[in-house]
C-alpha cells in the first residue's frame, strides 16, 4: 500500500468524524487516526516520497512566500523577451531580513498549471532569475530560492531561445555571487531545471521532497527500458532528503508533519521559515568573497572517483 492509499484511509476516517455528533466516539476515532498515521506513515519508501513531492495538495511556493514574508513585491520579466510565470521573483521581508526570493511555482488546478506551465521554466524564466540575483548582489541582499519543478521545459521555443545556455549561465553566475544564497527544495527538484536555481551556500530540503537527475519514470525507461519500474528506480536513484544529506548534496532537512506537508501546512511553513532564518544568520558572518569561495569550493568537491598513481602500477609504462 503506497502513501496515497494510506492517506485515502485517513481521509475516510476523518469523513466519518464529520458525520458523528457523539463526542466520545469522535475522540476515539481521532486517537485511532493518530495511531494509524504514526504506525504507517513514519517509514516512507522513496516512491512514497516521490508521490508526496508531487502531491496535488502540496503547498506551492506562493503559499510559502505569503506565510513567510511580512511583505513581498513581485518583479516581472527578463528585460529580453517576456515574463515567465513559472518562476515568481521579487523582494520580500522575512522578519526584518530583506531578501530576494526566486521561486518555481506549480499550479493548483489545470488552469493555473497551464498559466504556470506546470512549473517548467523557459529560458526567459532563468534569465529573469539571473537578472534579479544580480540585482540582489548589487544591493547586498541575500537570495532565497524555492525549488519545485519537474524540469526545464523541453519545447521548440525553449530550445530556440537557448535553454541550455540559460541554465549554464545561471550555474556560472550563481557560483560567483557575493551574497548569501540559500536554496530550499520544497517539492520536486528536477534535473538541470532545478539546479539552475540551486547553486547555493546552503541547500535545504523539505523532508518529503525529491532531487534527482531525471524522473524515476525516465530513469527506468532509459536504463531498464521499462517505465513501470519507476518505484524501483526511485529507490535506486537515491533521491530522498535522507540519502542526499548523507551524500552531502544537501545541508539540512526541514521536518514535515506526519503524512506530508499538506497535512499541516502551517507547521511546514513555520519549520521552513525557522530554518531559513537560522541559515541566514549563520551566513551573516562571512564576507562576500568568502561566500563566493565557500560556494565554489563546496561544488568543486562533488564526485566519487579514484585516481590511480600509474607509477605504482606494475606492467604499465
Amino acid at each position: 500500500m503506497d502513501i496515497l492509499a494510506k492517506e485515502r484511509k485517513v481521509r475516510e476516517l476523518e469523513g466519518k468524524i464529520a458525520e458523528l455528533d457523539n463526542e466520545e466516539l469522535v475522540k476515539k476515532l481521532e486517537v485511532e487516526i493518530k495511531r494509524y498515521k504514526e504506525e504507517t506513515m513514519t517509514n516512507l519508501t522513496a516512491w512514497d516520497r516521490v508521490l508526496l513531492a508531487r502531491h496535488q495538495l502540496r503547498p506551492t511556493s506562493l503559499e510559502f512566500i505569503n506565510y513567510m514574508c511580512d511583505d513581498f513585491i513581485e518583479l516581472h520579466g527578463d528585460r529580453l523577451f517576456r515574463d515567465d510565470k513559472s518562476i515568481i521573483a521579487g523582494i520580500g521581508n522575512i522578519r526584518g531580513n530583506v531578501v530576494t526570493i526566486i521561486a518555481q511555482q506549480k499550479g493548483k488546478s489545470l488552469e493555473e498549471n497551464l498559466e504556470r506551465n506546470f512549473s517548467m521554466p523557459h529560458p526567459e524564466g532563468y534569465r529573469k532569475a539571473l537578472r534579479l540575483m544580480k540585482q540582489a548582489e548589487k544591493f547586498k541582499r541575500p537570495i532565497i530560492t524555492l525549488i519545485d519543478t519537474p524540469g526545464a521545459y523541453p519545447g521548440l521555443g525553449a530550445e530556440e531561445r537557448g535553454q541550455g545556455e540559460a541554465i549554464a549561465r545561471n550555474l556560472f553566475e550563481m557560483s560567483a555571487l557575493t551574497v548569501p544564497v540559500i536554496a530550499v527544495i520544497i517539492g520536486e527538484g528536477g534535473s538541470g531545471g532545478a539546479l539552475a536555481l540551486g547553486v547555493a551556500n546552503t541547500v535545504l530540503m523539505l523532508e518529503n521532497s525529491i532531487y534527482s537527475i531525471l524522473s524515476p519514470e525516465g530513469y527506468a525507461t532509459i536504463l531498464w527500458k521499462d517505465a513501470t519500474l519507476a518505484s524501483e528506480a526511485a529507490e535506486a536513484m537515491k533521491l530522498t532528503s535522507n540519502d542526499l544529506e548523507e551524500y552531502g548534496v544537501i545541508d539540512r532537512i526541514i521536518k514535515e508533519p506526519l503524512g506530508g506537508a499538506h497535512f499541516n501546512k502551517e507547521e511546514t511553513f513555520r519549520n521552513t521559515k525557522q530554518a531559513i532564518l537560522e541559515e541566514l544568520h549563520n551566513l551573516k558572518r562571512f564576507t562576500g568573497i568568502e561566500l563566493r569561495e565557500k560556494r565554489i569550493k563546496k561544488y568543486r568537491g562533488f564526485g566519487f572517483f579514484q585516481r590511480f598513481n600509474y607509477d605504482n602500477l606494475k606492467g604499465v609504462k
Partner: protein
Amino acid sequence: MNDLIKAFENRKSSKNKFKIQRKISKASSVKTDVPKGLYEQCPNCKETVNVKATIENNFICKSCNEHFRVRAVDRIKITVDLGTFVEKGHGYITLNPLFQDGYEEKIIAYKEKTNLDEAYIYGYCEINGMPTVIGVMDSYFLMGSMGSVVGEKVTKSFEYALYKKLPIIIFTASGGARMQEGIFSLMQMAKTSAAAWKIAEQKQLYITVLTNPTTGGVTASFATLGDIILAEPNALIGFAGPRVIEQTINQKLPEGFQKSEFLEKKGFVDKVVHRDDMKDTLGKLLLFHRRYQ
C-alpha cells in the same frame, strides 16, 4: 556518512587489480561511424566511398560532406601540431556512487575497448605553434556522458589552464548526464561551470567547439560558457533531446532544428566551422588573444 566512506574505501582497494592502459594512441576496437573495409556505403548519403580516403579527409564523407563523429584521439591528431600533445591528469575511475549493478564492469569494458581513461581527455598542445590546453570528449565512450570522472577531469583541465596561464579549448560531444551516477552527475554541471567562471575571472581565453552530439547536462554547463563558441556543421546541439521534445509537444520537429546552422542563426553559436578549417580557425583565434609581454 562514515559507513559510506568506508564502503568507498573498500571499493578503492578492490579497483587496483584492474589494469588501465596509459597510451592513448594505441588502436582501439571501438566501432565508429566511419564504415570499416575498403569501399563501403556512407551511412548518410548511401554513396560508395573509399574508406581510407574518408579517414584521410578528416573523417568527412567526400560525397555528402557528412562530418562523422571522431574519437578523441583522432580529434587531437587532426587538430594539434604533430607530436605536441601531452596528456595530463589520466588514471581516474568512478567509484559507482549509487552502487548500480554492472556499472563498474561497463566502465572497465569501455576503458579497454577505447583505450581511454574516460569520456574526456585533456592535455597540453600547440596549435599552429601556439601553446594551449585542449580537452576532448569522446562520444564513443558511453555516449560521452558526464559523471564524476568527466566532471572532475573537465574541472582539472580548467585548473591546469589557470596554473599554466594558457588558453583552453574544449571539444564537446555528449549525450548529457551519466544516469548511473544520479545526483552526482547533476552536481558536475555546477562544478564545471564554477571552474569556467574561474577562468573567466582571470581573463583567460576559453573556446568551446560543439560537435555532434552536444546535448543535456553538457550543453547546460561548460559547453555554452565559452568566450567563443564554434560548432561543426550539421551537429546536433540542444538541451532536451529531439525525441523528448517531440513527445512533449506532440509533433515532428522542423527540418534542421537543433542543428549547428540553426543555432548560429538563432545566435547561440559564434561560427559554424568546417572540420578542414577548424585548426586554422583555432590558430587564428589563439593568435588574436596572444598576450604580449
